[in-house]
């Protein structure tokens, strides 16, 4: 029912994008899967849009359609932007992949940027961010800050992106405390503040004292703050929700990438590429390290610097799977392909991966 409603809402909303076409302006279109008011995924993409406006002023004009569901609606929404004269279109959710390619075929002169997908074309680029690098950093902080030696982790869905994050978190934690434990609960939702808060409370009741989350709302952090526990923000700097509880946050920052790619279109140098940038490309940022002793903050900064300079790679062997099988041999870097399809836990995670 909710799906139906949001589709209807999207249909209503999509009538709202009628922009007058200016002759020499580049029109940049955005398709968001959620509302820009989610303070999570779509909110951050919209921040990227605002960065484009700030960087290029009246050389560009931006339009967006929010709450577009990943289905037939998406193709209509993307095509609508292309028809309205957009020269560059960002489609910002995995499920927009095939609709984006379909529309791209019909509009060869329009450039498309699709986020988190893997299919490209001459006028379709893909991009994503290595959030797991940030998760390695917060894993180390969690292990240094936890008194109980156990962290709680709220997952959304058991997909490779989330599993990779949990593994990176644990590898970071194990690099400090080899016996570190993590309790994982799945909210089976990206976005339900009440449920996320309930999950956080359940974890704290079971004796964890540090919370990490891979769901979008600030609710778990708010619970941590209230209970005197600590945790990490997700997608945005959430320090306002937990001034005493947030240690740092993994911030999705698309603005550098968006400004660069828009500039490329304006300069005529745009080419179809695949970008998977992390801390080094400033697509992943760490919020200020707060509420921790100076040595912990310094160690975290050092790790960030090492990852940024390429000296440290979170998925460097030897890495063992849960059952003890060697997954990555000593000194070898796990390649991107294996990381993108990750469906196993590293050793030390005391939990069954939902199949």
């Amino acid at each position, binding site marked *: 029912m909710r799906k139906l*409603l949001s589709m209807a809402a999207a249909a209503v909303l999509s009538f709202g994008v009628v922009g007058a076409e200016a002759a020499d302006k580049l029109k940049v279109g955005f398709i968001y899967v959620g509302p820009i*008011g989610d303070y999570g995924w779509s909110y951050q993409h919209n921040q990227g849009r605002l960065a484009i406006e700030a960087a290029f002023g009246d050389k560009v004009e931006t339009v967006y359609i929010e709450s577009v569901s990943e289905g037939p609606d998406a193709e209509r929404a993307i095509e609508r932007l292309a028809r309205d004269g957009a020269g560059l279109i960002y489609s910002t959710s995995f499920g927009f992949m095939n609709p984006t390619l379909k529309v791209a075929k019909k509009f060869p002169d329009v450039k498309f940027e699709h986020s988190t997908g893997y299919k490209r074309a001459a006028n379709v680029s893909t991009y994503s961010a290595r959030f797991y690098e940030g998760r390695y950093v917060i894993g180390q902080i969690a292990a240094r800050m936890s008194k109980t030696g156990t962290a709680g982790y709220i997952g959304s869905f058991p997909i490779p992106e989330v599993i990779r994050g949990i593994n990176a978190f644990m590898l970071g934690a194990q690099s400090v405390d080899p016996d570190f434990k993590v309790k994982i609960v799945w909210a089976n939702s990206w976005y339900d*503040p*009440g449920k996320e808060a309930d999950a956080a*409370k359940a974890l704290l009741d*079971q004796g964890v004292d540090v919370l990490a989350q891979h769901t979008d709302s600030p609710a778990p952090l708010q619970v941590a703050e209230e209970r005197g526990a600590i945790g990490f923000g997700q997608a945005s700097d959430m320090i306002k929700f937990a001034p005493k509880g947030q240690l740092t946050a993994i911030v999705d920052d698309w603005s550098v990438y968006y400004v660069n790619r828009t500039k490329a279109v304006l300069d005529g140098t745009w080419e179809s590429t695949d970008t998977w940038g992390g801390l080094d490309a400033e697509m992943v940022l760490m919020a200020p390290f707060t509420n921790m002793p100076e040595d912990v903050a310094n160690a975290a900064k050092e790790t960030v610097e090492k990852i940024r300079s390429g000296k440290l790679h979170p998925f460097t062997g030897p890495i063992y799977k849960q059952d003890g099988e060697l997954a990555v041999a000593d000194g070898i870097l796990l390649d991107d392909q294996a990381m993108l399809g990750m469906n196993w836990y590293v050793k030390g995670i005391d939990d*069954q991966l939902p199949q």
Partner: protein
Amino acid sequence: MGGYESILLTVITAATPLLLAAIGELVVERSGVLNLGVEGMMIVGAVLGFAGAQATGSAYIGALCALGAGMGLALLFGFLTLHLVANQVATGLALTLLGLGLAGMIGEAFVGQPGIRLERLHIPGLSTLPFIGPVLFGQDLLVYLSLALVAGVSFVLFRTRAGLIIRAVGDNHGSAHALGVSVIRVRYLAVLFGGACAGLAGGYLSLAYTPQWVEGMTAGRGWIALALVVFSTWRPLRLLAGAYLFGAVGILQFHAQAHGVAIPSQFLTALPYLATIIVLVMISRNRVLTRINTPACLGQPFVPDR
């Protein structure tokens, strides 16, 4: 804090918004009106509750704003369905769409701001008692209000003349009209009461459950409340049991997961919904139970001079 005590506290928090919204809708449906706009009234209640608290610095005034917001939308629903005799199902769905859109628009400025929490009661000597203290005497006002509403609605519906009139209007509006009862007025009042409760339920989300505003934060709870009304076969005390059962299953599945119980988490997440379906099947097989409690005129429009 002891384990069971804190679990119980969490269950109360999870059950309260459902109970608030559902007890209002129960009265609405008892009067023969089906308002599917609970989700829409809730979300507007949530955003205006948040806004009211931000503007005045008081969560209580926020709660009043939430109540008023729900009533405002309910009034619109009443005007369309009772006055203009529009289709109730379609109008209710439209109300939800309108509410979600309106709330997103009003709430744009509040995204990313921490909210003001509705304070928990603190009675010296009582709230600090072990176990029963925080559970019985340490809740916020809306929790007590939700329980009082259940008792009040139960009493009024089945022990007073007013309740008799509400049920008569819901069961046979033609006869009630012939007896001189103003069907439209009774239904208006019931719809407004339902709106107030749904608005408060939304306010509870943005002021007590998770004091923040984000778009779509009701996340389908209005629909669950609607299901609970049917689940309870329109009986307030069963509704209370249903809401707490629903809250408890939702919380306990997280505990089971954290304990490493080897049941797929997807199944645990679906469990509360599964429970609703099973109970629905059970009660709909019991003809007597259904016939006695279902308002016979539910969803049927009434035109006085017919």
